[in-house]
């Protein structure tokens, strides 16, 4: 059992607030990703959980127990860093066995667990290799295996895949997820890569400038971003975010996209919520895969635009559109053909149009 509870957790370095009053509940056996750009406070948060950094304020509880006076080496926490910390003078087998030997486990147990871990990490045929001969990918597997083998109750991983090549990263993502299902550990995973977070985590804590922006399941965070930052950070290509104004009144509201024309809004409730911001600009958001492309004659809510660029990327074709200064991307299927310079309409998807307050960035609703 190992749940983690962070309450009002704050870390200041001189004038800089790295983490500001963070509240976060991580359930036992949960896989939580701390996601954000560099400088968002994710690594500092993890270091405080590990006991490497001391909080300026706030509490860290493991299963309700205050960790303030518990030093890092007594927290039963496994740690894997981006720069794999392994003993370069030892073989793969010795590296894997190290954490168990320090605990004076019987030799037979050590051998059995090393063999099992080697099999899990597909390192069987590398066991007697000196680590100096391993590839970067294999080194990181050893580093993860070395930490996982001690079966810590809490496993902290700081960008463990970011030095690996793309194909191997995708492979390791699945391995890690599977590893967690097997070991049933509580995992906290720091990353700046939203795909990794989406793919691995039960819940994602999106952070920016030391502040928690949203905490929820990958699909929640993706489908219902709470503000412009989260909307923009999740997804690749990212959500289209274009300025617009709410125009009209008395039951006939429309979103005015300037050179992109205007589109009527059907959602009564949304209109009510937008009313406060009626004279201010809004930010309209739609995911590239939710927008569709129609010929200029199309009826219904749409933004008029010109095709500026077409990227065929394997299973998808990303079509870039411009409506004056407003830029958008639409994700279409394989081998979608359209001419550069073509005049089109970007069709607004009912139920998947996000509106944000332009000033605060806060989500007003989905229409």
């Amino acid at each position: 059992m190992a749940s983690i509870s962070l309450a009002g957790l704050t870390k200041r370095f001189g004038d800089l607030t790295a983490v500001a009053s963070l509240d976060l509940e991580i359930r036992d056996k949960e896989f939580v990703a701390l996601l954000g750009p560099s400088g968002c406070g994710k690594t500092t948060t993890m270091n405080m959980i590990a006991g490497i950094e001391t909080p300026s304020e706030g509490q860290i509880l493991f299963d309700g127990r205050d960790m303030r006076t518990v030093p890092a080496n007594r927290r039963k926490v496994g740690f894997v860093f981006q720069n794999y910390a392994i003993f370069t003078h030892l073989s793969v087998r010795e590296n894997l066995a190290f954490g168990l030997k320090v605990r004076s486990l019987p030799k037979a147990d050590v051998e059995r667990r090393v063999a099992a871990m080697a099999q899990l990490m597909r390192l069987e045929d590398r066991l007697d290799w000196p680590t100096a001969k391993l590839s970067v990918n294999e080194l990181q597997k050893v580093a993860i295996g070395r930490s996982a083998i001690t079966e810590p109750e809490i496993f902290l991983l700081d960008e463990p895949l970011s030095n690996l090549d793309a194909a191997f990263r995708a492979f390791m993502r699945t391995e890690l997820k599977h590893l967690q299902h097997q070991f049933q550990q509580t995992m906290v995973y720091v990353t700046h890569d939203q795909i990794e977070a989406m793919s691995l985590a039960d819940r994602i804590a999106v952070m920016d400038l030391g502040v928690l922006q949203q905490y929820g399941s990958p699909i929640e965070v993706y489908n219902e971003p709470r503000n412009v930052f989260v909307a923009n950070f999740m997804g690749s290509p990212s959500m289209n975010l274009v300025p617009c104004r709410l125009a009209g009144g008395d039951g006939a509201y429309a979103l005015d996209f300037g050179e992109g024309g205007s589109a009527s809004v059907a959602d009564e409730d949304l209109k009510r919520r937008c009313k406060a911001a009626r004279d201010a600009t809004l930010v309209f958001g739609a995911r590239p895969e939710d927008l569709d492309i129609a010929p200029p004659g199309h009826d219904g809510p749409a933004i008029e635009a010109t095709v500026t660029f077409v990227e065929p990327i394997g299973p998808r074709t990303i079509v870039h559109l411009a409506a004056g200064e407003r830029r958008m991307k639409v994700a279409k299927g394989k081998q979608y053909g359209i001419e550069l310079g073509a005049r089109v309409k970007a069709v607004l998807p009912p139920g998947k149009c996000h509106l944000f307050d332009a000033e605060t960035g806060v989500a007003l609703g989905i229409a």
Partner: protein
Amino acid sequence: MARLELRNASKYYGKTVAVRNIDLVVEDNEFFCIFGPPSSGKTTILRLLLGLVAPDEGEISIGGEAVGEQGPKERNLAMVFQNLALFPHMTAGQNLAFPLVERKLEKAAITARVAEVAETLHITPLLDKMPAHLSGGERQRVAIGRALVRDPAAFLMDEPIAALDARLREEMRVELKRLQRELHHTIVYVTHDQEEAMSIADRIAVMEAGEIRQIGTPAEIYNLPNSRYVAELIGAPPMNFVDGTLADGGRFEGRDVPLSVALEGADGAGPAALAVRPEDIGIDSAGSGNGAGVDAEIFEVEPLGAFTIVDVSVGERILKVQAPGQPRFTLGEQVRLALDPDRCHLFHGETGDLIRSAR
């Protein structure tokens, strides 16, 4: 801008083959990507073109003329490296002007040219800033601008945006493509990122161990890979391969996977590997009786928002399926995979050569 050509070019370092028998024509105004894993010879091709090394065999021509013994200066090609080397003590504008100052151009001409290039790259507001005060993307634009001011015969770019973060890389590749279109440049672009190559290139050369394995448009390379090697390198998540045997009459039987598919146009019995892209496999509910289907179990689910990557275990193998949207599955759920034989490639089990393409 000029057409570039390598004819049967080879370069050895002692016994090590850097590149061998390279036949390559980069057309005038073409955006040509050289793609491959590390040490597959990508950069050597740039060095040969640039004149930094001479080929041991073969010929190189630029704009239709053999360049033979010409040194880098005479060839007038511009190079952009990954580690952009801006002079830290000069402003962005001075950095841009540097190649022209070095060539002793008149001051007025330099100012005009720098202004013109800055305009094209949308960096006019940055001209008075020092490199230390620029973001990574801005610095890369200045570095590209510095190559641009010279009006070279062609641009050679070696992983020019690899050091930038993912979001910025996506923006920069669109920007580079726009520049190339607007200015009608010939660009030879080295990358190890298949998505970047697919997105940006008019044509791609896929390298393996110093040799070119396939040249084609992004769509050709993606849809009709000519070998298992190319099929494995292009696409993320990668193509699924099922090893097995091809019987006379074109029926493929999987070895570790209980899969049997009739493939029209597949000749030659023997060991073979069936290959199918993750987006070309459908997931149906268990028990549905599709022809080329196979029973499977949901092993892992990666919801990525726009699509969902599902790992399914079939026999002793894990296959990756990319399903559109946000379908819901539970781990351990029994399903049936739908395989369209027309979407399957078949490669030789030993050589990896193509036996039959998808239709």
